[in-house]
C-alpha cells in the first residue's frame, strides 16, 4: 500500500455526499472505504451485485476473480454482465462494468481458477475477501487461505429459493471449518444434487444475498462492525422469511484456526472434497 489518502477530493465529496453525511459513515468512514482493498472471488450471481455496490459505495480498490466466460444463461441473474458481453471473460466483463460505474474505483481483473498453488499469492495483498463462488472445494480453499493470512471472509451462497450469509474469521468468530470440519461425502453428492435441483436458481435470490455481502464489507471497511460473525442469515424466498441463527464460536480443535492447527499451508481441495470447481452442474436438461 503506497500511502493512504487522508482527505476526500471535492469530486469525492460530491459523489458520495448522501452517504458520507451519515453519522455511521462520515468523512472518516468514507476515507476508510477509499483506502481499503476488497477481493471478490466469483463474478456470478452473488459477485454481480456485490461488485457493483462495492464500486458504487466508494471502495477504493477492487479485485474481481473468475475463470469462466459469460454465457447467455448467466444473464438471468448476473446483472454485471450483459448481452454484448456473452463470450467475454467474466472477470474482464465485471471490470468493464466497474470502470463504467466509477472512476473512483481501481479495479483489477483476475482471469484464473483459484487453487492451492496460487491462492495465497493472490489473496495476500487484499484487506477483505468476498466468497461469491459456487462450489464446496473453492469454499474450503478460500477459508483456509483467509485463516492463514488473517483476512475476514464475507461468505454468501444462493440456490433455488434459498440464500445464506455469514462472515468467517472475523472478530474472534469461527471459520468455515469450525462449522463444517468435513465436506459433504463425495459419494452421495451427485445423488443429493440431482434430488435437490442444485443447479436451479431464482434470479433475485443471489441479488439479495450479494447486496447483503456488499453491506457487510462496507461495515467492516468503515469500522461500523459486521453483524454476521458467528451468525448465519437464512433467507427463504418462497416465504420471504429471514432468520438469523447463532453459530458455534471458534473451535479450539479446528484443523486450521484452532489452537493446534494441522493445516498450516493449503492442501489439495479437489481431493479433500472429491469434486472441484470445474465439475459443472448441468444447466440445460430440458
Amino acid at each position: 500500500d503506497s500511502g493512504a489518502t487522508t482527505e476526500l477530493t471535492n469530486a469525492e465529496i460530491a459523489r458520495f455526499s448522501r452517504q458520507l453525511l451519515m453519522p455511521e459513515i462520515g468523512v472518516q468512514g468514507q476515507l476508510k472505504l477509499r483506502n481499503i482493498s476488497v477481493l471478490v472471488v466469483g463474478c456470478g450471481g452473488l459477485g454481480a451485485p456485490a461488485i457493483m455496490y462495492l464500486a458504487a459505495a466508494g471502495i477504493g480498490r477492487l479485485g474481481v476473480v473468475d475463470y469462466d466466460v459469460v454465457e447467455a444463461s448467466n444473464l438471468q441473474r448476473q446483472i454485471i454482465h450483459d448481452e454484448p458481453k456473452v463470450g467475454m471473460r467474466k472477470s474482464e466483463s465485471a471490470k468493464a462494468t466497474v470502470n463504467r460505474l466509477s472512476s473512483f474505483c481501481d479495479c483489477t481483473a483476475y482471469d484464473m481458477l483459484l487453487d492451492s498453488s496460487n491462492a495465497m499469492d493472490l489473496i495476500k495483498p487484499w484487506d477483505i475477501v468476498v466468497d461469491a463462488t459456487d462450489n464446496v472445494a473453492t469454499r474450503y480453499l478460500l477459508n483456509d487461505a483467509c485463516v492463514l493470512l488473517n483476512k475476514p471472509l464475507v461468505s454468501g451462497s444462493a440456490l433455488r429459493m434459498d440464500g445464506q450469509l455469514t462472515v468467517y474469521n472475523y472478530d474472534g468468530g469461527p471459520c468455515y471449518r469450525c462449522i463444517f470440519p468435513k465436506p459433504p461425502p463425495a459419494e452421495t453428492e451427485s445423488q443429493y444434487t440431482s434430488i435437490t435441483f442444485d443447479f436451479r436458481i431464482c434470479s433475485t435470490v443471489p441479488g439479495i444475498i450479494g447486496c447483503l455481502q456488499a453491506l457487510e464489507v462496507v461495515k467492516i471497511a468503515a469500522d461500523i462492525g459486521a453483524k454476521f460473525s458467528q451468525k448465519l442469515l437464512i433467507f427463504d424466498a418462497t416465504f420471504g422469511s429471514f432468520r438469523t441463527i447463532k453459530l458455534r464460536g471458534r473451535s479450539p480443535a479446528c484443523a486450521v484456526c484452532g489452537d493446534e492447527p494441522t493445516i498450516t499451508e493449503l492442501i489439495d481441495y479437489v481431493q479433500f472434497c472429491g469434486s472441484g470447481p470445474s465439475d459443472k452442474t448441468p444447466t440445460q436438461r430440458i
Partner: protein
Amino acid sequence: MTLTITLEFSGGMELLFNNEKSKQVTLPETFTPGSATLKELLPWVRDNLLTERAELFMQGETVRPGILVLINDADWELEGELEYVIKDRDTIVFISTLHGG
C-alpha cells in the same frame, strides 16, 4: 406425557422430506421426556419421515457432513449436539449448507 416438537427442513433438506418445510410431530412414548436425546431422534426422523436414501441424511449416528442442526435457532453444537435432551415444544431445524452462487 409425550413430547411434541416442530421439525423444520431448509436449504434443500425439505426435498429429502417429501418437500415439507415444517412439520409438527408428537414423538412416540419410547421418547421419555427428560431423558430422550437427539441421538434417539435422528434415527426416528430417518426411519419415519425421510423419503430419500438414508445416507443423504445420516452418516453413522449423526447427520451427514454439510447439514447443520439448529435447536431453537441456535447451532446444536452450543446445546450439546447428540446429547441434547429434547424438551416439549422444541423446534429442531435441519439445514443444508448451500455452495451455489
